[in-house]
């Protein structure tokens, strides 16, 4: 399997994306596009807790976690596509790849993948909700998360 993937390494990003589009599940007759808000967060431990005011809407979701201090690193509003990944730069040099798997009315399934990690998640939520997804393990006291809000 690893060998097969290495043979699939392509020299340019554009060609990669074309292959990606061809390889995707034909789950919809037309390509779905969903406007989203994507924020990258830095999470650290320590008291007192601190939450960037621009992250007030994720307060409940992060309150269960061990990191008490949350900082907004970047905030963008890409339109996620089906069949094409949107890359989000992370402060540790990595990237998160986001794409739409499918939509059904008010529900959307979003894929969150990290190229440098061995994970790929499909998460389905409905309008009004958001995904809080860890994208980097804690290192030197800092963990990274992204928040994906469809139809912001």
């Amino acid at each position, binding site marked *: 399997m690893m060998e097969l993937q290495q043979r699939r390494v392509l020299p340019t990003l554009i060609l990669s994306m074309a292959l990606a589009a061809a390889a995707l599940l034909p789950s919809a007759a037309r390509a779905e596009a969903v406007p989203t808000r994507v924020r990258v967060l830095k999470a650290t431990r320590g008291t007192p807790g601190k939450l960037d005011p621009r992250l007030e809407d994720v307060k409940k979701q992060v309150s*269960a976690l061990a990191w008490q201090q949350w900082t907004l690193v970047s905030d963008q509003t890409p339109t996620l596509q089906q069949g094409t990944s949107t890359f989000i730069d992370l402060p540790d040099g990595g990237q998160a790849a986001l794409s739409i798997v499918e939509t059904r009315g008010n529900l959307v399934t979003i894929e969150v993948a990290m190229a440098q990690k061995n994970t790929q998640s499909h998460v389905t939520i409905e309008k009004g909700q958001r995904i809080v997804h860890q994208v980097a393990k804690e290192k030197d006291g800092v963990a990274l998360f992204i928040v994906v809000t469809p139809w912001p």
Partner: protein
Amino acid sequence: MEADDLSLVRRARTGDDGAFQALVVRYQRKVYAVALGIVRDTDTAWDVSQEAFVRAHSHLAGLEGEEAFVKWLFRITSHLAIDAVRRERRSLKDAMEDVAEADLVGGGEGILSTPLGLDPSDNLLRRELASRMTEALGQLPEIHREILVLRELEGLTYEELAARLGIQKGTVMSRLFHARKKMQVLLADYAGLRGGDVGGQDRVEEGSES
């Protein structure tokens, strides 16, 4: 959680493997019991139990609060167990969730309550019945096994069951009813053979539980 549980989790979260092992010892049997109730097979339950602890270990640092760890441990256990039997499901449909008139026939016999009602302190009878129930559990469809185990071993409320299983609260209640009813039918023969007063339905009073 007991106070020493809290300190064990706290220490385990800092990487103290000895503390984590102590937690394993403390919860291994209950985790195994939950897994066994759902998967039925002892080897699979053993494997699921170990995997549950391994998964819980890998997330020690990410969850706030010591109580969250134990709750998470049992959640992982039931998820892994349910996953392990997913392919064996006899039916994925939520058939028979409604309560039909036929389901209530024979419901008023109080067959099981009678033997226990006569002597609530009969520990031997209680143990035998508990053992029979465990065997009977294996004869129930998977969806009934899992909801009974989650209700009885993890003590989940209707709301928690609805969230865990992805069904509505009404479905939780009717599914539990069907599961208990089926269990009652499976146990009825046993209670009858014990010589319990099966004609006692007229004497069954409210609050006659053991």
